[in-house]
């Protein structure tokens, strides 16, 4: 299977790649819809509340599709076990915060993992970590698929970073971590926007208004409500990566080496002539 070829824990065939791309586009749409919704959609009072719920139904389906692709695209025991174990570590990191925003060092594990073990693994790990911790802490709800999708993208991005050496590697990872944490916060806020503001305030989205106009309103909402959580989180994760990044990367590399993903296996029935005989 493909894992053996790539030497990475999880692989994906071309269907899977296509599925990820498609699902991500739709996922993006289900995050960004308030910015683009047309004027008359807001008029329809009876149904104005529908869009968020439709999207909340849609996203789990997207995730099912993508994760299913991963399952059939080839995950062997090693990949599954490593996913599970790293997911557990992530969940444990989220326990103190109960999955709430603010103190959330989970990304400090996710990004190095994605970076070392590849973007597909990063995608999966991002999604599964949040899922597992939600199950452990009992935080399952309509918000969960959005968290999973967002975290999955972040992990995928970490896997796409250029592979450097030494200091520059850490610097790039830390910078990415800070950025990704902020983006994650933005995305989750974007999801909460319609609920947080209703439709009758100067911060709520205006159907039909220009993108720039809505964007400004959203950013104001973001600054007003949750930037206070996101900045510390970004700093925390970036700091952790700077401090502990090197040994963590080393540990991950050692593990993926020990797990021997796609290591060459050779079995020959012909016995090796022992020196004594020769």
């Amino acid at each position, binding site marked *: 299977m493909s894992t053996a070829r790539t030497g990475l824990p999880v692989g994906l065939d071309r269907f899977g790649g296509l599925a990820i791309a498609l699902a991500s586009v739709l996922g993006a749409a289900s995050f960004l819809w308030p910015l683009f919704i047309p004027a008359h959609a807001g008029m329809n*009072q009876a149904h104005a509340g529908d869009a968020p719920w439709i999207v909340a139904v849609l996203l789990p389906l997207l995730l099912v599709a993508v994760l299913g692709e991963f399952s059939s695209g080839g995950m062997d025991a090693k990949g599954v076990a490593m996913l599970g174990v790293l997911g557990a570590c992530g969940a444990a990191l989220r326990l103190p915060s109960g999955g709430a925003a603010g103190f959330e060092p989970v990304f400090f594990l996710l990004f190095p993992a994605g970076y070392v073990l590849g973007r597909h693994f990063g995608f999966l790990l991002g999604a599964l970590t949040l899922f597992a911790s939600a199950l452990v802490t009992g935080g399952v709800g309509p918000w969960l698929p959005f968290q999973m999708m967002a975290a999955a993208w972040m992990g995928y991005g970490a896997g796409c970073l250029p592979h450097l050496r030494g200091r520059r590697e850490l610097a790039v990872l830390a910078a990415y971590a800070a950025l990704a944490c902020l983006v994650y916060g933005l995305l989750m806020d974007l999801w909460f926007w319609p609920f947080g503001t209703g439709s009758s305030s100067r911060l709520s989205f205006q159907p039909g208004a220009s993108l720039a106009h809505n964007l400004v309103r959203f950013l104001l909402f973001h600054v007003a409500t949750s930037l206070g959580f996101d900045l510390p989180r970004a700093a925390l994760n970036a700091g952790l990566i700077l401090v502990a990044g090197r040994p963590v990367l080393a540990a991950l590399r050692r593990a993926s080496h020990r797990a021997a993903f796609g290591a060459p296996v050779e079995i020959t029935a012909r016995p090796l002539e022992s020196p004594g005989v020769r």
Partner: protein
Amino acid sequence: MDESSPERCAAPAHVAKGHIVVAIVVDFGGRDGRVLVTCVVTRPGDTGAEVLQAQASLLGYAVPRYDASGSGLLCAIDGYPPSGCGTESGNHYAYWAYWHGGGKRWQYASGGPGEWTLSKGDVEGWRFEPDGRATPADPPPRAPSRAAELETPATTTGTAATTTRPPATTGKSSSSSRSNPSAGGKGSNTLAADAAGPVRQSSNSKSATRKGLFILCVALILLIGAGAYGRSRRKSSHAN
């Protein structure tokens, strides 16, 4: 400019400093084709909703009705339509379309009147669309009929002064008359009060019968809630 928008009001000489005059064009569309222009003296920065409110109290109309869900959507002017709010039929809605600009330069408003802040010489437009599409493609308010033009100056200039209200008095006036919010000033107050009178009485008579049930339900809810709380407390105390 002016000839392009006949509705524009000439600011009367006696308008106090720091105030502006805006025109409100209300086109009742389907009902009787009545188009009404009112000039209201107000403060820069007041919202379209407040000016509409002032106009209503000025003309003794019923208080403009807004969507109950608290979204800033306007449902009725002068109690028309009597019920419903942007009621949908297929892809069409019966609703009050909101415009800015006047004359040939009407622009479909992107937000509710609660968000639009006025500046000097603005023209506000309202047109009831019996079956509009809620897009800028809907027809703008028509030019005012002659009758309307004759009617308006008389009403407005007379009471223009009363409609301009220093924000300070708001608190008192509203506390004095619950039914008719935020329209300050004596003259308009009385006008609007009896406009909104019947509404208040009806709601009073209903609530009188309703109160008992209401309290009953609240009691029930509290009872169940307390029960749940007690049980979970016991459980947690058992746990450790």
